[in-house]
């Protein structure tokens, strides 16, 4: 069996200055820009069109900015180590390239771990909307945000809608003034007074829906990148032995994708957390 020789598989085409794979990955990234572009447009359209009060004034009211800053640093570092891996290959240092690649992989993993803690925190944080105002901590409020106590009955989901059924009652510890976990007294709210109850998951509000969808899709891109990097960590040696040039090119393409994924985060961070 023989294989067909594809022109410009390795050597750049004089017109574009790129080998096929690099040109292909740029085109793929163009389509990715349209994908995330559509999501950013969705964000803009929904937020601009929303009545006052439906969206938080700043994302930082709900989200954890220090953790996200840490994640930004981790991801930018991983972009640097990715380039270092490619640079090492260009200098024919396969061993150090694989080390840099491994560090990139670990950074990506660290990013996801931080993201896991951020997500979990949201899923254990609740909001209760009330039919009529009631006094909590000396104020009349129409909604209470906080954590459900251990003796609060377990919430059940409606089979039809997937949303939480309104329980007989809940016992909730309201948050402090700046969104910190409250140390105030737990409040018992009867089910008859509850209009709606939700955790800070995607269904909570358009803002969190956007947050979870965009960061979720971005997270999937990270996972995809990690699979590719892991593949090259495992079988890179074999490809390098067969054709160093081919392996270098593949790492370059992986790097382009990886920088793009980082870049998406560079936009997501201010748009979702700071604005």
């Amino acid at each position: 069996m023989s294989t067909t020789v594809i022109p410009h598989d390795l050597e750049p085409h004089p017109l574009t200055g790129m080998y096929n794979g690099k040109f292909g990955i740029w085109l793929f990234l163009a389509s990715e820009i349209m994908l995330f572009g559509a999501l950013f447009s969705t964000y803009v359209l929904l937020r601009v069109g929303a009545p006052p009060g439906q969206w938080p004034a700043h994302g930082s009211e709900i989200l954890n900015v220090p953790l996200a800053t840490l994640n930004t640093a981790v991801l930018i570092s991983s972009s640097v180590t990715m380039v270092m891996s490619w640079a090492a290959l260009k200098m024919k240092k396969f061993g150090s390239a694989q080390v840099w690649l491994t560090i990139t992989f670990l950074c990506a993993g660290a990013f996801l771990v931080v993201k896991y803690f951020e997500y979990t925190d949201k899923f254990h944080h609740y909001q209760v909307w009330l039919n009529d105002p009631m006094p909590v901590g000396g104020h009349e409020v129409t909604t209470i945000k906080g954590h459900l106590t251990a003796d609060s009955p377990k919430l059940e989901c409606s089979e039809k809608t997937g949303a939480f059924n309104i329980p007989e009652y809940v016992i909730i510890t309201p948050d402090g003034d700046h969104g910190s976990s409250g140390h105030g007294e737990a409040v018992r709210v009867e089910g008859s007074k509850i209009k709606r109850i939700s955790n800070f998951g995607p269904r909570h509000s358009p803002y969190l829906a956007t947050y979870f969808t965009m960061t979720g899709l971005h997270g999937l891109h990270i996972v995809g990148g990690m699979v590719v990097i892991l593949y090259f960590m495992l079988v890179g040696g074999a490809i390098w032995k067969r054709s160093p040039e081919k392996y270098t090119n593949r790492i370059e393409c992986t790097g382009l994708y990886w920088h793009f994924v980082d870049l998406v985060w560079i936009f997501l961070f201010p748009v979702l957390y700071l604005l």
Partner: protein
Amino acid sequence: MSGHHDHSHGHHDHGHDLPFWRKYIFSVDHKMIGCQYTVTALLFLFFGFTLMMIMRWQLAYPGQAIPFIGQYLSKDIAADGVLVGDGYNAFGAMHGTIMVFLAIVPLAVGGFGNYVLPLQVGAPDMAFPKLNMMSYWVYFCGGVTMLTSFFIKGGAAASGWTSYPPLSVFASSGQTVWLLGMVLLITSSLLGSVNFIVTTVQMRAKGLSFFRLPFFVWAQLVTSFLLLLAFPPLEAAGVLQLMDRLAGTSFFMPSGLVFSSEPQTHMSGGGSPLLWQHLFWFLAHPEVYVLILPAMGIVSEVIATNTRKPLWGYKSLVYSVIFLGFMSFIVWAHHMFMTGMGTTLSTFFQATTMVISVPSVIVLTCLILSLYGASIRYNTPMLFALAFLPMFAIGGLTGLPLGLTASDIHLHDTYYVIGHFHYVVAPGTIFAMFAGIYYWFPKVTGRKMSEFLGKLHFWPSFVFINVVFMPMFFQGMAGLLRRQYDQTEQLHGSIAHGLTKMSSYGAWLLALAQLPFIINFFYSMFKGRKVDANPWESTTLEWAAPSPPPHGNFDKTPVVYCGPYEYSVPGKSKDYCPQHVAMEA
């Protein structure tokens, strides 16, 4: 086995070295993948058509049992053989989805593009053969996913092929399967379009500059850019609708929504149903050009060959098609004039819609002028290509009143709209696909299709397809609304009901008219007249390869010396100068 022969390393033998499953199933050869796409897409085309034939029965004879097949349909679709409303809706939605995403695009781009484009640019294969195989199999999985939705509880998606929320968000789980299927189909198209663009730009043969590319390649290149850039927003929209359905978000659900007289207080609201329409049509308008551009490309090739003349205005054609591609991204909201998005936006999109009609008319004009003064060969591919011209003209020109906000008020959501886009896609694109199949069949199999059966296919098809769609214009102008399960309520015995029956009979007769094609296709594959590599005496590079082309395509890497349509060059012994043959002074 006495003598040892060392001749089996010739190009022709590569294909035979592979085991069956590598050669015919998980093949990386662009030609085999093109054939896989073509066959799969033709099957889906037939299936989508069948759905419509059943719906046409309900329209012509509402409440009567469907003959022959009614008894075999499940109770959710047809009770006692009578198509039920939900079944009608599901069939309608799936007819649209299957025809657009599973039949015509895969046929035009996956089938013809895969087979012909690498040959026409003189490449041994696609730039990424494995990716090419993957895009076929992702498409196949998407198709299977769509089909399985007929068998799940609640039936297939029934919210129209446009899947407008909130309806689609409240719909049964068939809609979720539809969304998952769409994600697969979109992924397949993306992989394919990357492959097409890289192949066209990077792998052109020596001497094949951009302005020597056959028009078909240009059409495919622009189409690929449309697929590449327009599909991702629909993928995003699909993800958002999945979130609305599965995670309870409210991207498309407005505040204060009431469904089945129940206030939807469990959801946050704050979404926008119009947002879906914007994202959907941002894809689906370029999609219209994805459907029509490859058809224009095929028709151009067939016309150039069979008029024995260069295409009239080749550069105008190329510039028009590029401009069409660009403009197709900024006309989408002319599908949304009636949604109350505002007169300012409507006016903008009305203006761009009028602008985009200009390049379409230029393309059509160039193709018609190409016929002027030619001694035309009226073979089957040429008949289909010639029929394409007036049919596409009718389809295109009837679109103008829909693009003007004032006349759209009356025509929106009537049968006029259905007539309009089916004229573009059915006697337009599908006829061009038939032209392409008859035209390139000798290249794929080494045998010609029967001319007699071909003409027996063409003439009835041409007549009956007009019988199907022409009445819809009159019905639409009379105000008959589309997507109705039972039209008699609205028509109550008016003349327009007779036209409904006429359309239905047209559809069933059209199905009969496809029998000669099916017979011809299989008969000619094995028993057709054997022909040499260039039976139409054509100029473009695919005819320089042997028929059928072996793995790797060309015996010797072609070099291009001239433009794509050098027919009837004065002072030459032959009336055609192939691109790969150096012209003597």
